[in-house]
Each structure stands twice: as structure tokens, then as C-alpha cells.
């Protein structure tokens, strides 16, 4: 029977971990999560791996596969080449809990600080608005909070700049683009949420499993709105980049 070879990060959550090799029988259409579930059920029940839906809808099984941030449930083993060993490590942007599990709960604190949805005054009930009004916001609402964008963002990962990260920019943008919302969050984003530190490398939208165009449709528009309020030396670069866009 064909085997899948895995190198899995193991740690107690304190200090540096180590890598452990596993070999798992291959099954047609097998995903990396499928292989990890085989390990946790049959080879080592102490392996800490977070997963829920197995269907790329909940975002629990975010990790780094061969150093690339990805959902384990959505990465098919064959796509990585059957003759090589697959390396699985936890998301690096967050404190490691144990093995492949890291602790992304700081994101919930950030969510709680983003100015909440606030309906415009004097709206007649039931609310009337149209499909064209909801499409822009709905794109961001597809976010499954896997936090892979946060994990891949070098500003979030390496600098203690106070930048809230791409997930939260689209969270704010989704509210800004809500047709019934009364607030504008670019002031919050640019003044408190460190949006200015994003230098638009688009890494976040490259790893998004929901293919949300985080940079193009949320970060850049919010930066531009902010630029009217605060002078931002990056605007020049953004404009250039946008010009080069399709």
C-alpha cells in the first residue's frame, strides 16, 4: 500500500519543539488533515491537532504545510508530491499551545474593539436595499476566520507595530460597506489599528482559502479613505501598485 510520509512538529508548548516522523497509509483523495486524523486515532492519541468540520468551512485546521500557511483539510496529499515528506508545523504568528495547536484568541479581543455595526438613524422597517448594495460587503463575510492571512502577514508576525492584521481590516471593511451602517471605520483603522504599517505585499490574499481579495478590495480602499484624513506616505506607492493592477 502506498504510504504518506509526514514530519510533524511536536512540542509541549514550552521551549522549542522537535519533529516526529509518521507514515500513514494513503487513501484516494486524502487530505493532510485526513493523514493527521489517522495519526491521532491510530498512531499517537497525544498528538494535539485542532480540526472541526473537515470541509474547509470552519477554519480550525490552519497550519503551515511545507512552510506555507494552509488549511490541512483543503490540502490534498497528492498535490504535494507523493514521493516527498510533508512537513506540518503550527501557525507561527501565535503562541504555541502544544504540537500543531496555536492560540489565536487574541483575534477575538481585536474583533471586540472594532466599532460595531451601527444602523443609520431613521431607517424605515423592514429595511429595503438591493443585491448590488450587498455584494461588496458579502465578499468579506465569506471569511472563515482561519487566520492564515494573519499568520502569513509579516507585519503581524514580525513587528510589534500594533497593526491588527488583514482579517480585521476586512472585518471593518465589511461593516463600512454595509449599506445600512452609519459609521466609517477608516479613522479607527488608520489611527488605532495600524493600517499604515501594511505595505501591500498581498501575501494575505494569496493564502486566503476563501479567495477574498483582501488587499485589493479592503486594505487599499480603506487606506485611500484614510489618506484623505491623515497624510500617509504610502499612498503614492499604493497608487502605483493599483495602476499596475489588472
Amino acid at each position, binding site marked *: 500500500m502506498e504510504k504518506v510520509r509526514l514530519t510533524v512538529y511536536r512540542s509541549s508548548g514550552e521551549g522549542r519543539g522537535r519533529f516526529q516522523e509518521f507514515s500513514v497509509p494513503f487513501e484516494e483523495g486524502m487530505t493532510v488533515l485526513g493523514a493527521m486524523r489517522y495519526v491521532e486515532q491510530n498512531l499517537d*492519541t497525544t498528538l494535539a491537532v485542532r480540526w472541526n468540520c473537515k*470541509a474547509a468551512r470552519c477554519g480550525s485546521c490552519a497550519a503551515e504545510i511545507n512552510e506555507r500557511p494552509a488549511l490541512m483539510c483543503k490540502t490534498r496529499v497528492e498535490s504535494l508530491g507523493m514521493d516527498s515528506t510533508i512537513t506540518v508545523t503550527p501557525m507561527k504568528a501565535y503562541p504555541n499551545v502544544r504540537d500543531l495547536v496555536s492560540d489565536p484568541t487574541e483575534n477575538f479581543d481585536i474583533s471586540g474593539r472594532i466599532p460595531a455595526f451601527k444602523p443609520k438613524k431613521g431607517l424605515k422597517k423592514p429595511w429595503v436595499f438591493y443585491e448590488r448594495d450587498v455584494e461588496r460587503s458579502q465578499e468579506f463575510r465569506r471569511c472563515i476566520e482561519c487566520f492564515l492571512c494573519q499568520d502569513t502577514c509579516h507585519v503581524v508576525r514580525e513587528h510589534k507595530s500594533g497593526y491588527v492584521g488583514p482579517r480585521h481590516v476586512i472585518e471593518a471593511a465589511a461593516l463600512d460597506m454595509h449599506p445600512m451602517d452609519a459609521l466609517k471605520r477608516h479613522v479607527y483603522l488608520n489611527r488605532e489599528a495600524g493600517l499604515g504599517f501594511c505595505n501591500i505585499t498581498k501575501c494575505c490574499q494569496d493564502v486566503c482559502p476563501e479567495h477574498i481579495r483582501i488587499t485589493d478590495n479592503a486594505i487599499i480602499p480603506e487606506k485611500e479613505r484614510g489618506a484623505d484624513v491623515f497624510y500617509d506616505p504610502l499612498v503614492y506607492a499604493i497608487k502605483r501598485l493599483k495602476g499596475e493592477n489588472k
Partner: protein
Amino acid sequence: MKPFNKNIGKDSEANLKAEHITADILIIGAGGAGLRAAIAAQERGADVIIVSKSLLGKAHTVMAEGGIAASLGDVDSKDNWEVHFSDIIAEGVYLSNWRMAEILAREAPGRVYELEHYGALFDRTSEGRIMQRAFGGHTYRRLCHVGDKTGLEMLRVLQSRVLHRQIRIMDETVVTRLFKAKGRICGAFTVRLRSGTLAVIEANAVIVATGGCGRLYMVTSNSWESTGDGAGLAYGAGAELMDMEMIQFHPTGMVYPPGAKGLLVTEGVRGEGGILLNSRGERFMERYSPTRKELDARDVVARAIYAEIEAGNGTEHGGVYLDISFKGRNFILKKLPGMYSQFMDFAGIDITKERMEVAPTVHYQMGGIRVDAESTATCIPGLYAAGEACAGLHGANRLGGNSLADILVFGKRSGENAAKYALGKRHNAIPEHEVHMESKRIASYLGRGTNPYVIAEKLRETMSTHAGIIRDGKELAEALGIVKRLKGDAKRMAVGGGLKYNKGLVECFAVNSMLLSAEAILRSALMRKESRGAHTRKDFPKKSPEWRRNIICRYSSGKMELSTADVPALPKRLAHLVKKEAY
């Protein structure tokens, strides 16, 4: 460096000390029902704490696809709560609690608008109102939706509200038992996975909002959490379980590849016009249900697909075909984006060009904890339940979209009623020796013993082969024997590692819950000597007027005791809305 994982696992009594936390209300589960309950309870002035087994925002609610059933009449203006009510009663095959059905039908529209006012963005009609789609068993187009990701939208909106209201959340925390003192609920014992510590939560009221038990079966649309934990906890505290034999098989789950087997293919595909074909290319639903065809109730369509596969009309991978490709690419990408990527990512199939292969998958439990229709209270003072964890609303078959309506309507009610009960009461102290015993019980799962995953696997296999879509007395009895043996094995369960993020330990708790739910399902299924809704007996293929009764399981002197209760009779003011049951 210390040898890996060797520093944990020998937990001494000392670090099995539990921290104490107090709240007015403890809510177990952070899905739609739990979060809605938390908001309602806090609005009433209660101090709330939410405990959830998964990370916040990952609850099974995010998997709900098709929509929320509510008779807004935005698309079909003739719709109203009375029609919705009669659909629930008739399609639940007259086993539903009429008062719960009435409450749901009346209050669902209000809850949908409320969710919109919380910030949810539903798809729109050309008049700018909330778009509603057709679903099986609903007389009118009734499901308010956001593409095929309605549950995600609902959960995010509620989650954001909970976070902004600064309601306390302990996620990735498992509740292992409920405590009672002087006959009423007084708290719960928990294991916090990320920190690997124990906590005792003192609360006057507990709301169980833990969802269902789909993981009792090999092929299921349910995620990791659905192991019947709520039923296990409530039953352990003395509450009654009802209608446990009623397990819903969703007609359409993925069949291929093996790793994706069971993943839900939303009823929205059929709601938007998709048709079912067997391997001979025949639209077989025309034979089984000439007028409603693909949009008959779920039990009917699931049995039809099952029968086609059994008759040898199945596809290569043991399913039937579901085709929506004729609707065109743009339509599909707008209305069913989740389905498009699910098939693309997992099976390499482009549903805008090709047919899907589907077969029934375990989806929902209609039964669960028995509650009072108005207040969601159980028979134990202080214990409430809402959502899939409780029984009564859906009878013998749930209509699509009614579960999202259920969790909003009864989530809110449970929060309000628990607050009414809990506020102003003095805390009953949790008996110290029970806390000690529970710590010891948890410690007993750490060490060498039977692998819980092996027991779970055997249980799933047993339930799938012996208590599936078509059942019979002999097989059910045999399964009950196996479950009894597995209960013995479960006494010797243990895993390596310590308390910190030990999924094996969590599986030990889950196995106990699953065994309890399995026993209740099997005993109830054996008792119900007829075929009704989701429960089909080969040896009793007809529906019987004698069995228009609910089966109730409760703990009594060391074993599970079963009894029946008449389905409450419809009052005069509602009776005229419902067609008389035909036999």
C-alpha cells in the same frame, strides 16, 4: 530538553485542583443557540459565561448552508405563520409539540429581522427585501439565505455582538458533568484544554446548547463536536430524553473521495432547481413523489435515494447524480459558491459542467433533551436546553431551515427564561466531595488503557450498519448488545498525555456521551413498532395511530427506563390549520 510529553501525564492530585468561577448562568455551547441565549440573558441583566468545546466561531452552525425558515412573505406573499406551522406539524409526521411549532412559526420572522438589525446581510429580492428560496416540505419559498453560507453569516453576526457586549467566553473547554444541590442545578465541572487546567463553574442556571450527535455514524455531515454531549450531561443530571430514535438522514451528502464522504450538499441545490438522476439517467423522484419530486421532505427523498442505490441503480461510488449544471455558471457561482468550491477542492469536479454524486448522510437529531415549550426548561430546576440538543419541535422529521430558525427563537427564549429563574437566587454551593470525585474520574482517563478512538470506531460502525435509514428489530437488538459491551470497554478507557490540549482525553468524554445517546436511540427505535418520518422499520413498515406518541428515556435506579407520552393534542384554535393525519 525534557523527553517529549513526559513532563505531563503524571498529574498529581496537587495540580488537579480546580479553579472556581461564578456566574448567574452557564451556557454550554457557542453555536447559534448558545450565543443567542447569551445575548438574551445578558440583556435581562444576568452575568453570563459561555463554555464551548471548540474554538469560538467554529461551532457546527457555520456549516448550515441553505437558510433560515421564516414566513416573511417577501417572495411568496401568501406565506404566513399559519402555513409554516401546518408544514411543521404535517412534515414532522404529527409528532411535534404543537406549542413549540406555533412559537417557532410566529417568532421566526421577528428573529430574522432582528438578525438583520444586528448586521446580517441576506441576499435580496429585486424589490430590495430579503430573498427567500424554496426548500423541501415548505409550501412557499421561505428560506432567508446568504448564498449557501447562511450559518456562517448568522454565527459571525452573533459572535460579534457577544464580543462587543463583553460576555465571558471560555472556549476550548469541555464540560464533564453538571452538579446539583438541593434538587437544583448549581454548576459544572470543566477541563480547559489550552491551559490544561480544571475549573468549577458555579451557576444558578445552565443552558445546554451543545448540538447533536451525528458523529455516532460513519457517514455524517456533522463536525467534530457533535457527540451528543448535551444529552449526556442533562441525562446524567436527571433530565429526560425524548424522540431519540428520530435521526435525520440528509438526502444529499458527498460520496467521493473517501475523506469527503458525508460532507453536506445543501438542499439549496434542489431548492434552486437541481434534479436527481439514477445511473440510468432517470429522474427517479417522479416515481416516488410525483408532485413534489426533489423537494419532498428529507425523509422521503433520503429513502428514495437509498432505495435506488439498493436496487442497483447507483453510481460508480455508490450514490445517485445531482445535477444543477444546466442553470449556468454565473447562477451557480452566485447562489451556490460553497458547493462549487467544495466539489472543486475535494473531488476535482466542476459542478457548473458536471453532475455531483450524492447519497444520504446523517445530519440532525430531531430528538434530545425534553423541555417545556414556553420556557425551554427541563424537569430539573435551573437546567435549560435549546437548539438541536433538545426535542419536541421537529417531531419525526425536520424541515430544512427550521433548525436555524429554532436556534434563534428558542435560543433567545432559553436565555430569557434562564435569566428570570437565576437572577436573585442565592448560589447553592457545589458539594465538595463531588468535585473531588470528578477530578479523580478525570485523572483515571490519563494513563494506560483502552484507546477511546477504537471504541468510537466500533460504535460508529455498529450504528451505521444496525440503526441506519432502514431498521429492523433483530438488528437493533443486536446493536444494543454491542453497545452494552462497549460500555464495559469504556470503563477501561485511558490515554497518554496530560490535561493540556489532550484530544484523546476529550474523546474519552465524547465516547461516554455517544454511548448514552446510542443506547437511547437503539432502545427507542426498538420500542417504536411502526415506521414514521425518519424512523423506518422493515419489520413494521406501516405508520400506526397507536404510535402517535413520544418515547421518553430517563435514568432510574441504575438503568435507562423508557416510557411513552401522548403527543399533546392540538387546541381548537390551531386544529383547523392542519390536515388530519392519514393512515
